[in-house]
């Protein structure tokens, strides 16, 4: 009795396994294998978090939107705007009215007409719901009042004030298929849309399949209105681990790594792969709580103490150790990679621990028996809030060592992004509790966003410093309206210098964008966001295997 029971279990288990095996194999028909069709296989350590343009946040997501939706304009390799779905455009004298002429005779991948009415509908919808379901597009439609299609191929944008960076804003916004979205537009409940693949596309590629955490396949759009890509499709693989991604390129399972960590450069170059680098607008910073109302550890508000910190940092060593030389140094909130918007005269502080010690001595902060200074009756020992960054631990241990040398103790408080944000803004967006933090930012080509994060109005939103300076805020408004690029640049430089003096941030380094690909491929544009980016479709259209 017992024996037969055990036997039955054994057979049952075996049968279950066979069934499971069958499930996993996933039946696919057809015979033979591919040969001539070119597929570009991209590996990424980022993830497509959602295919919904009202939900997605990650940069891989936006790069995927770039090649599957029409956009009015895009960037060329010099970061100038070039025509895309808009063939040409003009501005009224007061800068409040912009007219775009779109490509005639275009269609969406489902065969429906794609014209100026789609542009008008998309932007009107984003303006209408900017406080609700379309919140993530709000910054790109600021001051935009109405958008109307005057005929099938002409669309007019009206603003209630002159806006300096209209094209930079419009470059970010995908034009959406009304036929798909109009049911959601009745309620503004865009976020709940079910993004069943294949999606309706108006770009060079169609999202054919998508598996969370794993992969996505893009297929060349046969009805695309612009220059068609050489490849038949793109496969995107999302890796959880950089080593696995590098191994995949080496084993020829993928052709291109869109963002490579510095540690991958040497092994891949040795293995005969092409590694490209370009300065990127990503920066890592050391943050001081700059809220003047902060009750504790007020010595950290003193620009002299901040200067001492900056002088103690051996940033050159950090660039070598953490980024293996693939980063640059500067002292501006607008990364040098963005070109003319970053004041070239703002250099990082030199490494001078002796001077740093001297400054702290002169302030009367004497060292205690444990070597840690005492300021206003308490030890100079602080927590540094740090979101979980890949290089974070190494960066922190270096900072810890430098500060110890000037008699300041810091402890790492490592948390996830949203908790870090909560701790920095605590309590309730008042920025009273935290002392120090470290973070990494990715900026846009236009300086507006970088400059905006330290505005008083960003409390509880983008601000990670609690910095608030009305004079600075006034300049920000001015640069936003200044249509003359040279004059705008002068204002932007002044703002950058204010920050370089007040030191809410010490900028630790501006990372390079690194990518690597198999040498049999060509046509990739080496941009500040790599070849697969949200700036243009050029690389993906030009890419081909020799």
């Amino acid at each position: 009795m017992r024996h037969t029971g055990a036997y039955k279990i054994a057979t049952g288990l075996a049968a279950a396994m066979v069934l499971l095996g069958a499930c996993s194999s996933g039946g696919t028909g057809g015979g033979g294998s591919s040969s001539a069709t070119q597929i570009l296989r991209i590996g990424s350590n980022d993830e497509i978090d959602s295919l919904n343009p009202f939900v997605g946040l990650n940069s891989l997501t936006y790069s995927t939107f770039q090649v599957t939706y029409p956009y009015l304009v895009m960037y060329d390799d010099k970061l100038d705007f070039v025509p895309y779905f808009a063939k040409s455009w003009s501005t009224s004298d007061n800068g409040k009215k912009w007219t775009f002429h779109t490509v005639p005779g275009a269609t969406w991948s489902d065969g429906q007409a794609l014209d100026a009415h789609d542009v008008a509908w998309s932007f009107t919808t984003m303006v209408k719901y900017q406080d609700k379901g379309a919140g993530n597009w709000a910054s790109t439609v600021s001051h935009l009042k109405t958008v109307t299609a005057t005929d099938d191929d002409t669309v007019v944008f009206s603003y209630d004030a002159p806006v300096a960076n209209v094209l930079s804003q419009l470059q970010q916004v995908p034009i959406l298929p009304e036929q798909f979205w109009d049911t959601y537009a009745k309620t503004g409940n865009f976020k709940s849309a079910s993004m069943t693949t294949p999606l309706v596309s108006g770009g060079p590629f169609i999202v054919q399949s998508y598996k969370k955490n794993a992969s996505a396949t893009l297929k060349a759009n046969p009805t695309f209105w612009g220059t068609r890509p050489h490849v038949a499709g793109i496969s995107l693989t999302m890796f959880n681990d950089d080593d696995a991604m590098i191994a995949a390129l080496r084993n020829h399972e993928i052709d291109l790594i869109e963002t490579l960590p510095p540690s991958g450069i040497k092994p891949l170059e040795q293995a005969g792969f092409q590694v490209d680098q370009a300065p990127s607008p990503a920066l890592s910073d050391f943050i001081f709580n700059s809220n003047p109302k902060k009750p504790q550890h007020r010595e950290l508000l003193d620009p002299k103490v901040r200067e001492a910190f900056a002088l103690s940092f051996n940033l050159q060593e950090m660039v070598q150790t953490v980024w293996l030389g693939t980063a640059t140094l500067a002292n501006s909130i607008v990364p040098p990679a963005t070109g003319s918007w970053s004041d070239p005269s703002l250099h990082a502080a030199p490494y001078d621990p002796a001077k740093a010690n001297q400054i702290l001595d002169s302030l009367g902060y004497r060292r205690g028996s444990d070597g840690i200074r005492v300021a206003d009756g308490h030890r100079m020992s602080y927590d540094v809030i740090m979101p979980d960054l890949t290089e974070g631990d190494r960066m922190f241990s270096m900072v810890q060592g430098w500060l110890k040398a000037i008699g300041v103790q810091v402890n790492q408080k490592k948390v996830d992004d949203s908790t870090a944000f909560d701790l920095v803004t605590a309590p309730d967006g008042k920025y009273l509790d935290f002392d120090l933090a470290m973070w990494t930012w990715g900026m846009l080509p236009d300086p507006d966003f970088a400059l905006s994060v330290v505005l008083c109005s960003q409390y509880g939103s983008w601000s990670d410093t609690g910095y608030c300076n009305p004079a600075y805020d006034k300049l920000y408004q001015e640069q936003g309206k200044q249509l003359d690029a040279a004059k705008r640049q002068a204002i932007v430089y002044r703002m950058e210098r204010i920050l370089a003096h007040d030191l809410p941030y010490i900028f630790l380094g501006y990372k390079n964008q690194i990518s690597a690909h198999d040498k049999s491929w060509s046509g990739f544009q080496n941009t500040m966001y790599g070849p697969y980016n949200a700036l243009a479709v050029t690389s993906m259209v030009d890419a081909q295997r020799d």
Partner: protein
Amino acid sequence: MKQSRYVLRRVWAALLTTYVAVTFNFLLLRLMPGDPTSRLARVPNGTEETRRALVRQFGLDQPLWRQYLDYLRELGHGNLGISYTNQQPVTSQLLEALRTTVPMVTLGTVTAIVLGLVFGVVAAWWRGHAVEKSSTFVSMFFYALPTQWLGLMLILVFSVMLGWLPSAGMHDPGLMAARDIGVPVSSTAVLRDTATHMLLPSMTLALVLFGEYTLVVRSALLETFGEDFVLTARAKGLRPRVVLIRHALRNALLPVVTLVALSIGFIAGGSILVETVFSWPGIGLLSYDAIQARDYPMIQGAFLVITISVVFCNLVADLLYARLDPRITT
């Protein structure tokens, strides 16, 4: 009679545990610090109104008991909520991830069981001999290996140094993309491809598990060897080998069956390490990402699915035990 009462009691206990798990799950994440809406509200020009709308949308403005009742009601309908990060239903995402996890874990577990049985029987049979010592030592050695470390070492050797096996994902990117865009791909090619990708993660799992199984099989067998029926069988003049296979082994399988039933549930959670190392897009990786992103509905859902599968397997083990061993009544 007694048996049916036993079954009822086990089922009742399982239901109770499930309820406790469901409640615990709810409380665990609600009472912890960290505002789940901050990530969502952190959008350019995100207004206080946006934030309030989000709080409303996720019912976070309700009193706790109200949230709890809503949670139970939705759970009853199989609705685990909407993921904070991608705004899609949690249930369907979990099911899809589970479908990816199950074959990999099954392959690993079955291999571990086979290895465990072989090593365990050998160790028990050769008790006191050098064979037992080396067999037990090998098992303990593999038991002692940190899972993620073994995974990394296997990647280092088989993917990086030798280049034999892929180190991440479950499909060859080019192959799947070709299929997706309509190039004919044979199903055997896909099958072989999946098998190749599954090999390293499932073998990592098998190697770290089999040590534990060996030790349990060995102990169970040794206990059986002390039972009277073995003595009887021996007295009847049966050859030791026959007694081992016909009598001792079958009885010793009892605790092994329990262990297997239990570990299937546990592995779903324990595979977090393996899935993270090998980028295997299953429930472990899903939980890991959800925790990184503080995606509360997803964390709750994954945790619930894992816990309930353990409770369920536990119940199955208890019931099997009762069926296999009629003496059990408590």
